[in-house]
């Protein structure tokens, strides 16, 4: 029956035509804002996008969760409807990324700081509360620790928290944390590990003389089982902490905020991770969150300007805005005012500042 065979041929060629026409259509227009980037900023950006989509005549922006680095790479690939308009990031853009953007014609980037996120060091609610210093955490988790004052390193010998600091209980060191691909891990290493590392005078001196070995000492986490990479899913870490009262977990403040009756955050350098302490800057482990916008896309992509306005409105990122309800720590009033006016004027990032 040749009709059957010709059906195959017709349907296959129809699909090929569809492919070609689709790629042509995709290049001609896009009527929604396209956002990529950090999984830490994702929960906040999605709320803004949804409220913006429902409250305006524009479509709801599409947000891909790619991680900060992956997002900025896509963002810097070029100008045009095929490329993202906005990149979310849980760290500031790097000079190398600005350069690669510029090579692809993305020259004017608007930086928008949206607030802060705290990183907590938490254990199960029924476990004993701990007060840790960043030095304690560094000594407990570094791959190599200083043996004495004159620059000798040994493989981390500590088994219990009491080995690190006699004032702590003699429970086994067991920490669940994010993998190296995660922005939370980057921030934890930079703020906590390096913060504790710097308290050793000779290592601090290395920072200027030999920054590579300084980084290697401060940023390398032990691999002998005391630190467990628990994947990117913070809900799983919370569940594991409940099952194992002696373990600690590292995750973002919003997860602590939503699971207050299951886990509690340890005091770090004497400050507990509360909303107010992070907002005031007293809690030492907090980081700013950003998103980056292509100036060339504003007023070209429908809804982009409106999305920017929604994100920087008081009802979103203000002290009592809906983002604060979800665990974003707002910036102080004056800082918010400065960023908002930069966004209104579409003031691009000056390269000199990075």
């Amino acid at each position, binding site marked *: 029956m040749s009709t059957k065979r010709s059906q195959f041929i017709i349907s296959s060629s129809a699909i090929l035509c569809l492919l070609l026409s689709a*790629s042509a259509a995709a290049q001609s227009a896009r009527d929604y804002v396209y956002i990529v980037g950090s999984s830490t900023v994702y929960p906040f950006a999605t709320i803004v996008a949804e409220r913006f*989509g429902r409250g305006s005549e524009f479509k709801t922006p599409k947000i891909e969760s790619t991680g900060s680095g992956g997002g900025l790479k896509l963002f810097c690939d070029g100008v045009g409807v095929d490329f993202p308009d906005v990149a979310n990031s849980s760290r500031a853009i790097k000079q190398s990324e600005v350069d690669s953007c510029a090579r692809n014609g993305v020259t004017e980037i608007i930086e928008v700081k949206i607030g802060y996120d705290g990183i907590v060091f938490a254990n199960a609610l029924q476990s004993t509360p701990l007060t840790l210093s960043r030095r304690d955490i560094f000594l407990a988790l570094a791959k190599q620790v200083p043996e004495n004052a004159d620059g000798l390193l040994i493989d981390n010998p500590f088994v219990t928290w009491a080995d690190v600091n006699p004032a702590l209980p003699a429970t086994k060191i067991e920490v669940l944390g994010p993998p190296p691909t995660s922005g939370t891990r980057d921030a934890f290493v930079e703020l906590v590990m390096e913060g504790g590392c710097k308290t050793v005078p000779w290592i601090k001196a290395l920072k200027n003389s030999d920054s590579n070995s300084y980084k290697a000492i401060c940023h390398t986490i032990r691999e002998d089982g005391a630190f467990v990479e628990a994947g990117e899913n913070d809900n799983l870490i919370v569940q594991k902490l409940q099952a194992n009262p002696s373990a600690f977990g590292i995750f973002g403040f919003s997860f602590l905020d939503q699971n207050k009756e299951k886990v509690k955050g340890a005091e770090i350098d004497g400050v507990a991770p509360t909303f107010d302490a992070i907002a005031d800057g007293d809690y030492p482990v907090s980081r700013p969150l950003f998103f980056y916008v292509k100036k060339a896309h504003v007023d070209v992509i429908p809804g982009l300007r409106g999305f920017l306005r929604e994100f920087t409105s008081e009802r979103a990122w203000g002290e009592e805005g809906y983002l604060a309800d979800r665990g974003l720590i707002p910036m102080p009033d004056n800082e918010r005012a400065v960023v908002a006016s930069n966004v209104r004027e579409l003031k691009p990032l000056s390269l000199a500042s990075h």
Partner: protein
Amino acid sequence: MGAKRTRERTTLQKVEAGLKRRRRKELIFKLSGEIATGVGILFLVLFFAILLNKGSSAFQQTYLQLDIEFSAEVIAPGGQLDLQYADFDGIVRAALQKELPEISGRSERRELYRLASVGAAYQVHDVIAENPGLLGTTQSIWVPASADVDMLVKGNIDAAVDEALRTLSDQQIDWINRLDEAGRLDLKFNSALFSNGDSREPELAGIKGAMMGSFFMLAVTIALSFPIGVAAAIYLEEFAPRNSWSDLVEVNINNLAAVPSIVFGLLGLAVFINWMALPRSAPLVGGLVLTLLTLPVIIIASRAAIKAVPPSIRQAALGLGASKTQVVFHHVLPLAMPGMLTGAIIGMSRALGESAPLLMIGMIAFVVDVPGSFTDPSTALPVQIYLWADSPERAFAERTSAAIIVLLAFLLLMNLAAVIIRRRMERKW
């Protein structure tokens, strides 16, 4: 004679001596087989029990009954309906305030307003948009309660623990209890789960967007992989010469069936998105990637089905003067069709459950609008499950399980269809 008899006896004796041992061996083998099956079934039952236990509550949602006043001043200032800028939030708040009139003070009122979902205002908007005649009247409407209220009603928030440790205050719980006593609070079927796209508000989040995305992807996949797979199988079985070249093709097809699915995702990213410049997050690209993934499965199943057609049928047709093509399309293909369809359905159910290759082509995305075409941004069911499992809000946990239940139901239906087709249409020779 004598020697033969003794030998016979010894053989019989040998058999009898070994009989017990052989029977015991058989019993042990049978038992261990049964134990293995039993363990498998036990884990399956456990898995379903946990899933149903966690997820079944998500098919219901707490609703609040409010007397909504469709005030003409708010909705139609100057006599003209103004649906876009009217303050529907304010209308919902006023209705809440009317339920508990003694509440005053800014922070207390803010706490009160949190009992209703932000979706309540959208619902009021929809009601008046559908029926403008209600303007100026007061209607009793069931609107979704917020996710925290829902969690309390379902027992996922423990009112007995210390106030500081939960997301609802003592005061809010007291208000909720009073609303409940007044009959203003009720658990109803969670229709939002099946009629909405994704949302960051658990009470508004639904899987319709993901289901449509999966549907469009599978449509592309079946339209491409079935004809290509069947054509390849027919060629390889009926027409291709047997030589080292066809052996190489065969080895490669079997290899492809075992390649980890993420590799197909990488291929899709390189070819369809970077080279052919197709849009990211589109069901079209997802369908193309899944086509690559299911092709080997369909080719292998189709070849097996063609092989099962007895050669006598081909010979009879050839003997009556049919051409090779006529033999294939008039006789072999119709007889092999049930086996091919079964293979295709099993390939499709594998494609429906895949998430890894979709991660590479931008389908882990927040998409609120339900996709309406092959190029609209969309997610797929397994990806939606992945995204919800990673959400901090407590109420997403049960919705994750509910989405898994829906996905499993689809898989079950597809596999059941495969079994039925095989039973109904299979021919024995």
